[in-house]
């Protein structure tokens, strides 16, 4: 969330904003600096891709685009469902309209009226029958929109015209309105009229100042609802010779129990990532365990010294997924301290990344991961060709196994830290949030976090994985692609330049 990466800027006041340049700050809640939501998977018999673009203000409309990959479709509907009220308190579904020039693609705009956890329920009917899927999203105010100079100038002109017109009316009213028809205006009335206009000008000036103060007050109130991730503290402590990362939730909203508890997302309460800064040449994907409801601890792998960005993905029982941000410093000794992984799924990599735009990465067991990107230029806000395949050292397709219930995990970050995303082949959504909504729809709110929900398949998987994602802005990015092969978690590192 950019509120941490970019401290909230002061909202320009009412008059200043009229002349301010239009600057759009795009942020997100789940993930950092990447507000759009991507989903790919099954909706009954249909294979679909869904993109949701939150507007960053509340209440406001979100754009939803649905692409159906297999077969004809009769009708596609979308419905925003708020976590607290479920489908019983949702407005009727909207019929998504076909997108011209893009067969199988439909679009709609939906109103989100309040902040918090939502899902977009997508329902499809067609020759194959009916199918549905929910795509969890977070509705939050995340941005500030100054006024464009053109609009500001136009409104200033209109405002000035209104004030001038009002003063003219006051002048005419005090000069002539009470005169008998046809009676002349005497000098006394003219003088009185001028005095009235002067007095009115003073009153209007005060009213404008009052209006400006009101505007500023509204802007301050708006800033109060802008999303801020839970405050937290990350420190590395020595525990029996081991270096342990202590991650504490210190936010009053959390300590005051104003929020619902956390639930595991693909089996872990917290997915915590360390990214060495500024080089991005060391990375860890860890899973702290709870000591109490506020504190989590995890053993720190042997990583190079330096400053690390901390990104912690959590999911609330309401379905609200958020990424908490911090930094820690690994001091001398940390790279040589004894280390026992806290969780068997913890993984790390301190290999430097490949050179810019390289398409092959040698994994820890000698396997080769290939980025099948072709010659495509990667453009911001357009789906990127994130297709990867893994071959064993002897060149055979690797047999992959699920890693925490997923065929693969991808972590994407921009070199300045303003973007961090943890996604899977099913997209950027939190699986736990989707499961919670699925069970809430059926009226089951009490056992939504049990093992049944988090059951993980153990099937064998093909050697290729794809991620539905569009980079949010141009720049240099690094990606860590993680798969499980032959019992080991392997990490491939790739760089991408986005236009």
């Amino acid at each position, binding site marked *: 969330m950019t509120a941490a990466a970019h401290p909230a800027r002061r909202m320009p006041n*009412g008059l200043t904003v009229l002349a301010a340049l239009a600057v759009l700050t795009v942020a997100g809640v789940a993930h950092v600096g990447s507000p759009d939501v991507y989903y790919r998977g099954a909706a009954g018999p249909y294979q679909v891709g869904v993109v949701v673009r939150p507007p960053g*203000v*509340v*209440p*406001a409309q979100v754009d939803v685009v649905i692409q159906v990959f297999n077969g004809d479709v009769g009708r596609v509907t979308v419905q*925003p*469902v*708020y976590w*607290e*009220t479920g489908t019983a*308190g*949702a*407005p*009727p579904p909207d019929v998504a309209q076909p997108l011209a020039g893009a067969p199988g693609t439909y679009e709609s705009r939906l*109103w989100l*009226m*309040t902040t918090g956890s939502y899902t977009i329920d997508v329902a499809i009917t067609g020759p194959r029958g009916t199918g549905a899927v929910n795509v969890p999203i977070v509705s939050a*105010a995340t941005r*500030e*929109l*100054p*006024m464009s100079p053109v*609009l500001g100038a*136009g*409104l200033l002109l*209109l*405002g000035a*015209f*209104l004030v001038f*017109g*009002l003063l*003219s*009316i006051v002048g*005419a*009213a005090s*000069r*002539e*309105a*009470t*005169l*008998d*028809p*046809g009676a002349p205006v005497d000098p006394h009335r003219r003088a009185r009229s001028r005095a009235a206009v002067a007095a009115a000008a003073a009153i209007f000036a005060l009213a404008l100042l009052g*209006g400006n103060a*009101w*505007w500023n007050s*509204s*802007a301050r109130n*708006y800033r109060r609802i802008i999303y801020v991730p839970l405050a937290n503290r990350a420190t590395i402590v020595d525990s029996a010779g081991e270096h342990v990362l202590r991650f504490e939730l210190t936010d009053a909203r959390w300590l005051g129990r104003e929020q619902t508890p956390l639930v595991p997302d693909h089996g872990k309460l917290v997915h915590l990532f360390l990214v060495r800064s500024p080089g991005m040449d060391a990375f860890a994907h860890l899973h702290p365990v709870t000591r109490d409801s506020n504190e989590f601890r995890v053993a720190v792998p042997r990583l190079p010294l330096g400053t690390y960005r901390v990104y912690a993905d959590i999911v609330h029982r309401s379905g609200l997924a958020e990424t908490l941000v911090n930094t820690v410093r690994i001091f001398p000794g940390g790279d040589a301290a004894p280390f026992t992984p806290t969780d068997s799924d913890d993984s790390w990599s301190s290999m430097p990344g490949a050179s810019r735009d390289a398409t092959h990465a040698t994994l820890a067991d000698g396997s080769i991961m290939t980025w099948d990107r072709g010659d495509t230029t990667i453009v911001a806000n357009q789906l990127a060709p994130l297709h990867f395949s893994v071959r064993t050292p002897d060149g055979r397709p690797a047999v992959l196994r699920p890693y925490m219930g997923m065929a693969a995990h991808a972590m994407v970050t921009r070199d300045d830290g303003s973007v961090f995303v943890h996604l899977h082949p099913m997209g950027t959504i939190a699986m736990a949030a989707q499961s919670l909504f699925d069970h809430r729809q059926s009226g089951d709110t009490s056992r939504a976090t049990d093992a049944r929900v988090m059951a993980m398949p153990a099937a064998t998987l093909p050697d290729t994985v794809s991620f539905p994602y569009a980079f949010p802005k141009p720049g240099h990015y690094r990606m860590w692609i993680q798969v499980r092969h032959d019992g080991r978690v392997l990490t491939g590192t790739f760089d991408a330049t986005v236009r």
Partner: protein
Amino acid sequence: MEPPRPASGAGTAGVPWYLPAVLVASLCVIVGVMWDISWHSTIGRDTFWTPAHMAIYLGGLLAGLACGWLVLTTSLGSTAAHADTVRFWRVFYAPLGAWVCIWGTFAMLTSAPFDNWWHNAYGLDVEILSPPHTVLALGIAAIQLGALLMTLALQNRASGDEAPRYRLLYAVAAGLLFLNATIMTTEYHRRVLMHAPVFYEVACLVFPFYLVTLARGSRLRWPTTAVTAVYTVVMLAMVWILPLFPATPRLGPIYQTVTHMVPPDFPLLLLAPAIVLDLIFQRAPPSLRGWRLAAVLGAAFLVVFLGTQWAFGYFYNSPASANWVFASDNYYYALPKTAYAYRHVFPPVRAGALVRGLVVALVLAVVSSRLGLACGDWLRRVKR
């Protein structure tokens, strides 16, 4: 002073062509506003093209175009045609009210891009009063004030058979303007606040000013009663007509089952203090004027309004009033079931705060009445 003469542009059997236009515009904008509030309470989702918005903008355009045409024809007409008008920017002539209407139309037009930007920057505003809505409200109020001033000038110049007609039309214009004032302060007049000091503070700040001003400008024997009667009739019409139309929410989350258009609250019982104010106007000795008259009017308004509205609150905030006549079950779709309004209970108010609030309300009522007297006396003299 010259003898009274027929109103400009009016035959003995009719009224000037522009007067129905601006009065219809005044009715259009205020009904449109109430319709729009109901729309947002019931359906939620809207576009520029909702019928409620069309009513508001139709009113704005009707007033603006009618008055613009009046300005053109009067300014290009003979010098004699300028006799009943005020001059504007040295070359334009029209009745004072026409200029106010035109200003209102421009204010409404200005509010549209401002409001659009506001929604993009801060989200759709869910409160009635926001800066861009205030610009729109000022425009709407200006159209209604302009219609009032145009009727007033005709009333003040009228004589003979046509006088009663203009007196009645003035009462209608005044009632519609007063309705606007009650809507702009709606958030402070909800039934759960009927035992809270803010209800009476806001009422005493606004209503005596409007009622006294409008009454002093009238030539009727019961002007305040007439003004509040217009307010009451229009409100009752909205309370009883809106729920006849089926409608369901198109936005969520939905906390209330809504099947028909949500009506406004039952009108405030302002007829009671209005009758008392009229009696005071009729029976006050000539020596009772200025601040002393304002003190009597303000105190009378507070005492009568407090007595009737406080007592009515017991009934109106009870489930017994949840019927088609009083419509206290007019919950908007997103009203949580924990809300005081839904539970039909009053929020707690400390006795000390209530006493302090009522003292403040008394002071506000007196000051508001005094301002009303000053403005009303000016209205009585408007002839153009």
